[in-house]
């Protein structure tokens, strides 16, 4: 059975008002080919869940975003993401601003089909002030500690980009950091994987150990072969970040004002 699709076909499955999780971290291994296709598709009013980078910026610039859920939006080597900044400063988007660790617990809760998970991260900070819907829970044990109850970051759709995948959706990362892509796959109703290269299942272990098989086909709805599909963000070891292209992206954003 094949799940191979085009990026446009993936984008066409996204409906207005949906919650879309996007893997990677900052300006690293972002599924930019899928994001670009989504920017060109009709769906809007989206909630984007992301350790944010240019994925968030591209979708903000395309007018697709109602809400961003993120602990940061950055291009890493260029600290501030220009389109996200502009959208925030113009009051065009809503923002759910979480601590990085809180955000991970939201992913973990969704992946485990739990309503929430408790953490200390966020306590005492203005994260609780700017997210008045957040609740705390008290430990039922002797310590009685009060903790933040991070609600599950459940998504309709997750988009991730990995190095290799087979046609049924088994997907492999060959770089040094899995980021949280497996959690996105598990937290979403449907996960779509783009990859640098589609390979036969028998080829998967030729480039990396079994531990590099990050995502199982049981969690994948569609696979897109997209060489360079993380560009201009990094996709180690296939390529690093294209710093010149990233600078150009920022300059273009400035010209658009």
């Amino acid at each position: 059975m094949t799940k191979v699709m085009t990026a446009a076909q993936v984008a066409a499955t996204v409906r207005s008002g949906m919650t879309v999780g996007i893997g990677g971290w900052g300006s690293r291994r972002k599924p930019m080919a899928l994001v670009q296709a989504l920017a060109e598709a009709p769906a809007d009013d989206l909630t984007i869940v992301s350790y944010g980078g240019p994925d968030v910026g591209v979708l903000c610039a395309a007018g697709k975003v109602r809400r961003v859920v993120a602990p940061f939006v950055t291009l890493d080597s260029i600290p501030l993401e220009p389109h996200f900044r502009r959208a925030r400063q113009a009051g065009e988007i809503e923002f759910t601003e979480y601590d990085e660790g809180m955000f991970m617990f939201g992913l973990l809760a969704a992946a485990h089909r739990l309503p929430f998970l408790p953490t200390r991260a966020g306590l005492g900070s203005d994260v609780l002030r700017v997210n008045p819907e957040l609740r705390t829970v008290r430990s039922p044990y002797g310590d009685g500690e009060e903790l933040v109850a991070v609600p599950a970051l459940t998504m309709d759709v997750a988009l991730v980009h990995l190095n290799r995948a087979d046609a049924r959706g088994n997907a492999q990362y060959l770089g040094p950091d899995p980021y949280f892509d497996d959690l996105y796959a598990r937290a979403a109703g449907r996960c779509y994987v783009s990859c640098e290269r589609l390979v036969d299942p028998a080829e998967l272990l030729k480039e990396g150990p079994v531990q590099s098989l990050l995502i199982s086909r049981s969690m994948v709805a569609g696979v897109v072969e997209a060489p360079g599909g993380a560009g201009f963000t990094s996709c180690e070891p296939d390529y690093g970040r294209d710093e010149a292209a990233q600078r150009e992206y920022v300059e273009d954003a400035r010209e658009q004002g």
Partner: protein
Amino acid sequence: MSRADVCVVACAEAFRGDGEILAAGIGGAITVLAARLARLTFEPELLTHDGTCLLTGDVPALGQAPEVVEGWLPFREHLWLVLNGRRHVMLGASQIDRYGNTNISCIGDWTRPKAQLLGVRGAPGNTRCDPTSYWIPRHSKRVFVPEVDLVSGIGTDRGAFELRRVVTDLAVLDFATADGSMRLVSVHPGVSVADVVAATGFELHDICGNVAQTREPTDEELRVLDRLDPGRLRDREVAA
């Protein structure tokens, strides 16, 4: 010896006594050099990383890959370390108040900011769960404010785990006062107490005329720094 050398050593001193935990510098040459210098001199058990996801077995120069890797530290392990309390991070801040509450999220009203910055990142969890220090390369009233616009990292009045020290281009400050407010510990060579007071937007606790001078790097420390940063990237971060 440059002002940057003094700053690196003052930042490195924040890690003194930390032992076998991750000494993490965030962004820029100074904090990364500080962790590596501390490990190579007075705090040899420290763990240091390469800025991405490797725990380095040796201590490479800035921009160099390690020859020895002693561990794997992807982002999810960083987040685990934070909750587990085995990390001392040296963060930056766009604003800081007298209790060490810091802001890296936005300037102005959060609902529609005048300037959107990074977002809170991991600062809430770092400051709640681990020792945290700050490096602020430009000590000014824009940064040292009476009240921050959004509390990202929490201060001593909001349940911070432990704010160790604040190092700036002018001085070293800490929170070892009865009410946990900021105190001037030392001024760097060539800087006066009046300079620091003039650059700080709130009253510093308990300055009674006996503020020390920040110690100068030893010859050994300068030799180590020259090996770690032969291109003197550190001097670009601090005005001489």
